[in-house]
């Protein structure tokens, strides 16, 4: 039997020392050993990016890294990105409705923060390239692009605004809304359709 490796890490500003199995993935160390469940698991095959964290400032899919590889590293998860969700990228995701179920959001936010570190003034195409490794099933990505751009501007990017207004135009039509009362009686049951 080999010696069980020890890992020393700083995670969201807290120092941890733990014995871990060599095969333990970083994401399982975070979630199951430390209880840091703010970072979710979406696919197990490094396709979806939901588990993205920062390791020494660079975004990493934490399902594709062993805990032992993080030895000596400073790790930031979504939980430690900023106090009270105050990072401009976090605020922009909430403000721009860039999330629905929100399961991809921690990884998407961490990837976007790293993207803006590398390129503080990205075009729409550059935002899309930068987030290619993160899947979202709810939003069609439209508001995610808008949120990243909004965050870039808040963080001081000089570029012209894109997607200035909410994406959709609501057009008037028809007569003002009529309202129905609740139906008091139950229809005959037994059907199955919808």
């Amino acid at each position, binding site marked *: 039997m080999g010696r069980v490796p020890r890992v020393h890490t700083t995670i969201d500003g807290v120092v941890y020392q733990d014995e871990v199995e060599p095969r333990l993935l970083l994401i399982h160390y975070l979630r199951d050993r430390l*209880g840091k*469940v703010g*970072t*979710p*698991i*979406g696919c*197990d*095959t490094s*396709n*979806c990016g939901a588990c993205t964290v920062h390791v020494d400032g660079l975004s990493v899919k934490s399902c594709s890294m062993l805990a032992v590889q993080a030895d000596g590293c400073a790790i930031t998860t*979504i*939980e430690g*990105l900023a106090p009270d*969700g105050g990072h401009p990228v976090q605020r922009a*995701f*909430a403000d721009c*409705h860039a*999330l*629905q*179920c*929100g*399961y991809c959001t*921690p990884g998407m*936010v961490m990837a976007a923060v790293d993207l803006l570190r590398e390129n503080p003034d990205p*075009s*729409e*195409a550059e935002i*899309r*390239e930068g*987030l*290619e490794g993160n*899947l*979202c*099933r*709810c*939003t*069609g*990505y*439209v508001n995610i*692009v808008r949120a990243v751009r909004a965050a870039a501007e808040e963080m001081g990017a000089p570029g012209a605004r894109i997607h200035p*207004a909410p*994406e*959709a*135009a*609501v*057009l*008037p*039509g028809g007569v003002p*809304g*009529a*309202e*129905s009362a609740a139906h008091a009686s*139950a229809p*005959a*049951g*037994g*059907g*199955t*359709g*919808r």
Partner: protein
Amino acid sequence: MTASSETRAPAAPAAPPVPADPAERGGVRHGVGTDAPRPDGVLKVTGEFAYSSDLWADDMLWGATLRSPHPHARIRGIDLTEAVRLPGVYAVLTHEDVPGAKYYGLERADQPVLADGKVRYQGEPVAIVAADHPETARRAMMRIAVDYEVLEPVSDARRAAFDPACPPVHGPAAPPEPGGAARPANVVRYQPVRTGAFAAGAGLDEVRAQADVIVTGEYQVGMQDQAFLGPESGLAVPAADGGVDLYVATQWLHVDQSQLAPCLGLPPEKVRLNLAGVGGAFGAREDLSMQAHACLLALRTGRPVKMVYHREESFFGHVHRHPATMRYEHGARADGTLVFATMEIVLDGGAYASTTSAVVGVASSMAVGPYEVPNVRVDAYGVYTNNPPCGAMRGFGAVQACFGYESQMDRLAEALGMHPVELRIRNAMSEGSRTATGQPVDMPLPMADMLARARALPPPAEPETGPGTDPRRLPGGVAGTTRGEGVVRGVGYGVGIKNICYSESFDDYSTARVRLELVGGEPAVQVHTAAAEVGQGLVTVQQQVARTELGVERVVVRPADTAVGSSGSSSASRQSYMTGGAVKAACEAVREAVFRLARERGLPPGADDALELRGGAVVTRLGAVVAELAELLADTAVEETRVFRHRPTRPMDPLTGQGDAHVQFAMCVHRAVVDVDTELGLVRVVELAAVQDVGRALNPLQLAGQIHGGSAQGLGLALMEEVQVRDAAVRNPSFTDYLIPTILDMPPMRVEILEHPDPHAPYGLRGAGEPPTLSSTPAIIAAIRAATGRPLAHAPVRPEDIVGLPVP
């Protein structure tokens, strides 16, 4: 880089004037009609939102599921000896350990909680394990010896539908209903629709003779996966009263409860469900997955049991969209007026019925699409096979039919030499039309206007091709191996119609409890329902309704659970309508109760007939304050519970399909612009534009999000998403092999939202989640056909289809 794909001009017509503070309407901030922020938005960007997979209990065990590797096999024996011996294993259960009913199901109790001596699909649960660690549970499963006698699977849905000699997946056929014909044992539901000459018994040749042009087509829709990002998971906690508390990500708490309680041998009140954070649903959480298994293990061990599926297991752990094979024939006069349509739709339900009957109901009643056709003959079948079970997915039978009828419209337009939009407008349904099932459309249906708007949108910039082209702008991106020499552009249109809410006489209702009281001296509202927030933004809508109805900004939506009556499912685009309607009704009752309190204290002369609740006060219509809520309520809480039902619907006639089966119809129109590399068979969607009528936009920002997301799922079905099933076995159960659109696959979108109120619906709203999923698929495939001239009868389109190679 082109301007059009990077920037977005405002939609052509000007937006309506907005109030000074767009967040405020009717005297309260963030009410109905505003872009109110999600109450869970901050929690979701900070990682604090608790998904079902994040739950933890002291002393909890981990559950795991042993699944069949075979699509069809008899189980000769199961030997658990080695598994139970493993230290750390607390329980290993099989079907013999199910204390109550052995079968469950949404429409038919045909699915065993654990395999009952036979497995009918690959991945069927055979045994479950509870252990102190997920790895222990996995090792225990490897020690369970199951002796399978492998059987030939029924894998061909058409054979299941039509071949009387096909072996039954579930035993012999039920006797025919009175007046109905005998049908093969594997047919779960057959639903015909007959109108015009077909109803009068005319033959097809007679009807054909009236048409100048006839087009026929055979189309297939592949098996699509909902691919929510948060796999199935939950935590079952045994309770002191012998019952169980289940925390789970689901779409309909009460239908889970009603299926679980009999299996667990418990009365419903001892099976309490609480909604945990849901990582997307799209229909896949309508059926049970780990619910019964976790409860069984918790009750057996007396310990909390957590179960979390991996992604691969998730592909086997939930139903998919029914794959369809469809045969369509349309006839029209030379001017484009439709004369007749026939369609045969076969939907593969897989091993268990799930919602197949209802999917057949939608597919048959929506088979013709939003077109006026005088003579219709529809034959829709949902069948059992040994393929993966299929059930609900966003669009629910209407998606499959839409690909068929829209493909036919394009084919017909080509045969007639008409523009595809012109043909659609010529035959468009509108308010006052009748559907093929004889139902009058008694609400606005501005289809012609929507099509004209989609067509009038400015086109994106011309494609860049040739030397020096940025490969990232080409189909295939940097992985492409051409320089775009063979890139051609195409434009296509699609339109779809979806019924909203549950149909066919289903008793569809939602329950809401609303409480108004002072908290810290300020009026505050609590809304309690069992309605599942799955990401769509229902929590926001509930708050908005309460704010508008009660004039109080501070509204808290309590966690959903079974301590309050059912809200029905978060499906069929129904929750804004149904739970929005229930919250509104409960608020109205609370408001009346507050007015009674005010009257008891005495009103100023003439105020009684015109009271309103605004800005935390009872006021007269002119705004004079009668009483502040802070004063009026004092230590009293006003609480009301109301059940809301939509207007009744009728069953479809089993022989003719006739009947007012639906509550509401909703439509979306898409225009897709694609670049296709004809050498590589690769497609880049350059732009996707949508025009949707929503009756009334309760929250325009969230609504646009629904249209974006639904369109993206339709894009996936058009270009890449198919669960590959060969001999009833799944070949691609991972996100490496089952592809969903990335941010590079999904183009920028233009969205126009129209508001023509439905007089029957709360606030005039129209369900909105599903329609965009219908029409984006045919629009994109039409655009590829326009670019390439290929017939393209299969969704998703595969590279082989474009370059003309045989598909393996």
